[in-house]
């Protein structure tokens, strides 16, 4: 996927003016957060579960090698294969090799952000294999040549009219704006693809070490058809998804759906445990798990380790006022919102993604709703420190900050600076009490007035009063 993160400011400016996008984002704001709040209110132990989940995830990350090896042993025991892939390229090549082995022409796909991360669809297409997205949102995006703007509701940036239009254009059927009709249309077309596919690719929400199983959580059931109908099932997932036991998995499931959509439980929670056995009626003949690292193991033991707790629920972006204003595409790569602002610099480099961790007021809402208590503002600040230490932050910012800091470290000079600025601003405001145009602060005054200081600085006034008291 093309990287557009360096254009974050331009993209967000366009997004703010996009009437249709703003309408779609309005629906998001009214939907997920309200539903989450209701679901959380119905589960008194929710916060306690968050603590347990964070602790368990920390334990898993500290013992990642042990659980991953246990998972591998059990996948093999079940008759499956595990492929370890350090980079996105390794993963794509591995998946292509498996597809070639079974002479695959078409591949059906369940929703998977890891396959977006490794840019699998483009790679398969270039190599003569047709990938077919089967999640409704992803399917709509594929028809449009578009990409997800949200990690669980990929087409959240679209409205009904957009779907109606693209279906009419690509399916060559009469135009309809009835969601039920559109759904039925997609269903009919996808059925033939499900049956024809040689390989089914899904992601995994969790990999269970004790049983060698992978789990997918969906609401449409498309994932189940993707993984059971074709002869070969490839699970593409990342190393931090492993959990020790089925019991542990259920702890995360109790948090995941509630945090994501406000459901108590997602509609389909499907475990895959190896290929079809002799007496099974259905299922794939070949079962592969592609474990993607792509920068994750470097996070273990470092300042970003907490980010590996992420279970991809999307609560952080659903509640983020910045995401809510500009939408997911503005972030310019695969993962948007607060979690994306932490992950993207790790995966594509801070040089390209520097604007993302800066695009936060540190309001802390994301951390307050995170089911595994990831300190997202702290991790975004980590990137700002990284950027600052590499001298990547803009020169004007560094210069301004540096001169301000010079005074802030010297109380006497600081008084002098405050007194000067205070006087200048009061003179500029005159009797209006506000300044409508600041020469160096157009970012502020283009949109709002600058209230003027209401008098001399507090410190000056306080000293005058103290002196007067002493005299009297």
């Amino acid at each position: 996927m093309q990287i557009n993160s360096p254009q974050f400011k331009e993209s967000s400016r366009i997004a703010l003016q996009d009437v249709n996008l703003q309408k779609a984002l309005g629906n998001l704001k009214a939907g997920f957060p309200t539903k989450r709040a209701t679901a959380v209110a119905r589960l008194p132990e929710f916060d306690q579960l968050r603590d347990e989940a964070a602790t368990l995830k920390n334990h898993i990350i500290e013992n990642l090698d042990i659980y991953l090896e246990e998972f591998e042993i059990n996948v093999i025991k079940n008759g499956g294969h595990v492929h370890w892939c350090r980079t996105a390229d390794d993963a794509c090549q591995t998946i292509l090799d498996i597809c070639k082995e079974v002479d695959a022409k078409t591949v059906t796909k369940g929703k998977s952000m890891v396959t977006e991360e490794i840019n699998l669809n483009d790679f398969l297409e270039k190599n003569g294999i047709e990938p077919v997205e089967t999640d409704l949102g992803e399917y709509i995006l594929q028809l449009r040549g578009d990409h997800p703007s949200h990690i669980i509701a990929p087409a959240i940036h679209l409205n009904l009219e957009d779907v109606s239009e693209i279906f009419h254009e690509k399916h060559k059927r009469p135009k309809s704006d009835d969601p039920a009709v559109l759904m039925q249309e997609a269903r009919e077309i996808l059925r033939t693809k499900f049956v024809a596919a040689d390989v089914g690719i899904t992601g995994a929400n969790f990999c269970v070490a004790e049983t060698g199983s992978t789990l997918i959580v969906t609401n449409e059931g498309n994932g189940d058809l993707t993984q059971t109908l074709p002869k070969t099932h490839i699970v593409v997932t990342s190393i931090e998804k492993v959990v020790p036991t089925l019991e542990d998995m259920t702890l995360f499931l109790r948090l995941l759906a509630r945090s994501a959509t406000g459901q108590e439980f997602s509609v389909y929670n499907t475990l895959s445990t190896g290929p079809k056995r002799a007496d099974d009626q259905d299922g794939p003949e070949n079962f592969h798990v592609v474990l993607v690292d792509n920068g994750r193991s470097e996070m273990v033991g470092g300042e970003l380790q907490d980010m590996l707790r992420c279970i991809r629920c999307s609560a952080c972006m659903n509640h983020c006022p910045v995401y809510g204003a500009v939408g997911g595409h503005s972030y310019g790569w695969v993962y948007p919102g607060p979690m994306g602002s932490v992950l993207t610099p790790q995966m594509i480099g801070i040089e390209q993604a520097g604007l993302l961790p800066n695009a936060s007021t540190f309001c802390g809402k994301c951390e307050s709703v995170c089911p595994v208590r990831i300190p997202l503002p702290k991790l975004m600040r980590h990137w700002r420190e990284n950027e600052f230490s590499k001298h990547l932050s803009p020169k004007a910012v560094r210069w301004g900050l540096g001169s301000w800091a010079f005074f802030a470290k010297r109380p006497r000079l600081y008084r002098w600076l405050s007194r000067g600025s205070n006087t200048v601003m009061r003179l500029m405001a005159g009797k209006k009490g506000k300044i409508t145009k600041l020469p160096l602060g157009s970012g502020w005054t283009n949109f709002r007035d600058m209230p003027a200081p209401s008098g001399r600085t507090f410190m000056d006034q306080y000293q005058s009063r103290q002196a007067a008291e002493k005299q009297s």
Partner: protein
Amino acid sequence: MNPPNKPTQVGLFVTCLVDMFRPSVGFASIKLLEAAGCHVSVPEAQTCCGQPTFNSGDRATTQDIAKNTIEAFDGYEYVVGPSGSCIGMLHHYVELFDDNDPWKARAESLKARAFEITAFLTDVKPLKLTDVNVTQTATYHDSCAGLRELGVKQQPRQLLAQVAGLTLNEMEESETCCGFGGTFCVKYPDISNRMVSNKTDNIVASNASLLLGGDMGCLLNMAGKLKRQGYPIEVRHVIEVLANMFDEPAIGEANYALGLPARGAHHAN
């Protein structure tokens, strides 16, 4: 801790925005802290809490500023400030030093002593207000750092409940960020503008004639937007109302006394 006749020693952390823009909030803070039985000092060596450098990734400078603040407030039983954001920053100092750095313990000590003023006047030295009468309908913006880092939510409301005549109309999304975010508002002006516009929509919809909050940054942002949009809603720091100090025009309102600081003269309050 203290014998009843010995007042609690409080160091006032003025905050740079109150110092620069709204001195009345500093005097209102002193008035209320004294009414709660504290002796208030204003250490001269204080500057800013260091949040601009901390959030811009300049850790080394932030450490220097933190050390300056820690030293300035050494020996005070409590450090109180009219801002959740700045007091929250004082709490962050502990993250700046390694465990074996002697400054770590001093930062821990400051954290244990540092309180946002409405929290202090509710949880530490509960204040009984008398004779404060404001016949207005107000709405309250919960500033992010105070709310989510320090748990300031009910305290300002409990104090406002003691103000006779005041009606509090809660706005929708009172806990959503106003878009100020320190340097954020000038680094990402378009996004900040959308956020503050959403906020002023909610303020206007609350039908309040008075917007209150506990942080000058947010108040300057919201007042500036309301003025630009032409709404006649007064904006004040909650502390001014609790201290019954209405002499100053509201934030961004006209009629400020014009003039250069006259040496030694009292400012007309």
